[in-house]
């Protein structure tokens, strides 16, 4: 016994010693990359790290952060949700049409949340109950709802939101815009639910080992469906934020949002294999991507190159994730 334990106790340590550079890069590589990029931009552009710019970036990324926090739940539960961008397009278009015809604001919000619950439930049914691969099941729902929105609007941008709605985004409280405060609130709520409640624990169990979770008496299907509903709800809130900010809605909106959210989560240490991740990590990931975009923007890099860049970052994050889980499995 003694010998065996000693051998095992030495195992991971000696591994670390041998692979110092590698393990540092695996665990902190992204942060190092982040710091390096920030430093580069800061040297080129002295306003890059100014408080003003940072606050500004945060405000622009607010709706995207809300969405990414929701997606983190789905990722940790071991699934993926490709439909968030389409959900935003769908509910913002319908709510804008409704509001432009004089509908009440609270009713429109209630409507959006109900739609979200239904779409989240559908995603859950397809993926968790019927067992479709998440990529197929949620892309399909995404196409359906975006298609409906495109048909309703003939792909024209919808205007006519009441002034109170559009003004909200631009009002400030304690120096920060309202949208920023909402994003902070949602992030804190997500942090609390995922990391400090029994439901959050169950999400980790289901994503980490669904079989074991079932044996431990956790209703795996219910938890995974609930995660889809959480993601859909946060997409609905993101949609409201986007409407308020843009004063309009369009069926073609947020087409790459899902990828960016997943990229942010993965950069923040959430595993695509489930069972691992954190809301704070996602916050960091969102901030990283938004800051770099801002830096590229200020250098006059066009949006298409930024897309290439986002793709590259996602790839890097995913590769690190895959190396990390392999290293974990080897212990």
């Amino acid at each position, binding site marked *: 016994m003694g010998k065996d334990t000693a051998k095992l106790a030495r195992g991971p340590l000696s591994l670390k010693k041998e692979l110092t550079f590698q393990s540092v890069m695996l665990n902190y590589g992204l942060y190092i990359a982040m710091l390096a990029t920030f430093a580069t931009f800061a040297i080129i552009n002295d306003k890059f790290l100014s408080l003003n710019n940072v606050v500004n970036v945060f405000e622009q990324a607010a709706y995207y952060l809300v969405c990414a926090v929701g997606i983190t739940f789905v990722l940790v539960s071991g699934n993926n949700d490709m439909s968030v961008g389409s959900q935003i397009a769908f509910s913002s278009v319908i709510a804008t049409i409704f509001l432009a015809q004089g509908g009440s604001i609270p009713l429109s919000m209630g409507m959006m949340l109900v739609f979200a619950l239904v779409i989240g439930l559908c995603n859950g049914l397809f993926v968790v109950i019927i067992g479709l691969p998440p990529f197929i099941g949620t892309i399909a729902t995404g196409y359906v709802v975006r298609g409906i929105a495109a048909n309703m609007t003939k792909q024209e941008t919808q205007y006519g939101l009441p002034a109170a709605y559009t003004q909200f985004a631009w009002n400030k409280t304690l120096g920060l815009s309202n949208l920023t405060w909402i994003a902070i609130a949602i992030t804190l709520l997500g942090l609390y639910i995922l990391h400090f409640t029994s439901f959050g624990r169950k999400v*980790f169990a289901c994503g980490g080992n669904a079989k074991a979770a079932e*044996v431990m008496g956790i209703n795996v299907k219910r938890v995974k469906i609930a995660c889809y509903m959480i993601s859909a709800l946060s997409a609905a809130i993101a949609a409201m934020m986007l409407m308020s900010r843009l004063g309009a809605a369009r069926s073609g909106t947020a087409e790459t949002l899902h990828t960016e959210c997943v990229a942010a989560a993965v950069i923040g240490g959430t595993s695509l294999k489930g069972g691992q991740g954190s809301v704070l990590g996602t916050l960091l990931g969102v901030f990283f991507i938004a800051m770099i975009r801002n830096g590229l923007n200020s250098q006059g890099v066009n949006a298409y190159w930024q897309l290439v860049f986002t793709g590259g970052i996602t790839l890097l994050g995913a590769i690190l994730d895959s190396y990390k889980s392999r290293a974990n499995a080897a212990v």
Partner: protein
Amino acid sequence: MEQKEKDYLVIEDIHKSFYGVEVLKGVSFSAAAGEVHGLLGGNGAGKSTLMNILGGIYSKDSGRIFIDGKEANITDSKAAERAGIAFIHQELKLFGLRSVAENIMISNLPTKGPFHFVDDKKKNEIAKQYLDEVGLQVSPTTRLDELSIAEQQQVEIAKALSLNAKVLIFDEPTSSLTSRETNILFGIIRQLKKNGACIIYISHKSDEIFEICDKVSVLRNGENVGTRDTANTTNDELVSLIIGRKLDQYFPELPPAPGPEAETVLEVKGLVNKKLNGVSFALRKGEILGLFGLMGAGRSETARAIFGLDHLFSGEIYMEGSQVKISSPRKAMKTGISFLTENRREEGLVLNADIRKNLTFPILSRVSVPGIGCIRAKTEMSLVKEAFKRFLIKATGPEQRAATLSGGNQQKVVLSKWFMTDSKVLILDEPTRGVDIGAKAEIYQLITEMVEKGLSVILISCEESEMMGMCHRILVMRDGEIIGEFQRDETTQEELVGLCIGGKAV
């Protein structure tokens, strides 16, 4: 030594560990061409691991393999194929939707023309040749899944022949065959033997070993404990080789067995499903009831059915006298049943989570505020710290990831997790598998302590010594039925093993 040089396949001093647990401790054996060599041993003796090393699925830690006098470096399954080793798996690994010919020829499809189109005519011709060799009368163009399991197995053998395999490994080939099909298979094996193949035959069934094998080697705890000519040995000798010496010094003293007057905690009547043919028994309060049998005999299946993991066609479950319906593990836990599954890495632990989380997953409602579900960190931590002390978990702390623990400590975490649920009945499926001897003794001690406090335990194991050392009463299962019941002092290890492998009881 001279004999050894003549042997076609020589395995020398193979070692292999998984997650720090040594599964093979220097296995050596050899087999000649034109010989059928049986491989016997209990579950976990290392047979499958050894054969997977031969097949290139696992890589060995050390040791050497010689084929036809030359050292073979088997790094992957392709290398095994090149070395002429073929594996007829317990569960067939074929493509159900493709034709028989394609399945046989998949690794070297004949092609024609500059664009290397598959030459279908040639493919079917060659496949037919091999089908004839194994005596299978089907057209090469038949879709594989239209064949019976036995016929599919023959296709797999034909495939092995097409790869020029000289060493054929059969891993419990008769487990899903009827006796008529078994006879056909034995015919094929005899033919292969006549053609000079070297055949390794893994089985649990001693009568088959005596019928088809020339020699037999017995593995126990990762070592070859003896090779015999089947003509010069007896069933009894093989049984005693499988069991080995007794190890009861590891077992603590059990609390006295509850008598027939003791209260019945759990009773099941006529459990029937795909794997079970009417299982009935009663568990008394404070009793350790052993369920013994080979893998697939219905032991784990009984536990899974009781715990709501497998569906039941019919049968009744009573908990403390009143009938309960258990449709999910959650319901089972509510009625007071816990279940430690046999494979802790797959079904016991969330490996990426830390020990603290793993310990409290089943009791989240107890460590969180009702209604809003907020985890009460202090309550949780004090429970976890207590578990560390009481159940002797050795780790750097509650935050250590479960994946990085040794097998024994992982098992203690799973065990503690279930102890903490305060269940009335705990079902333990192979609680000491892949655990070193020290941790084993500690686990036995913990189980005994909990039983003294009134827990009732169903202990499933394929180690007969564990049955004899840890159970008040033992039920022997075979083919989904209970075929024997013994009080602890009424039986011997030999009798138990004899019943399981189907030979006559000693």
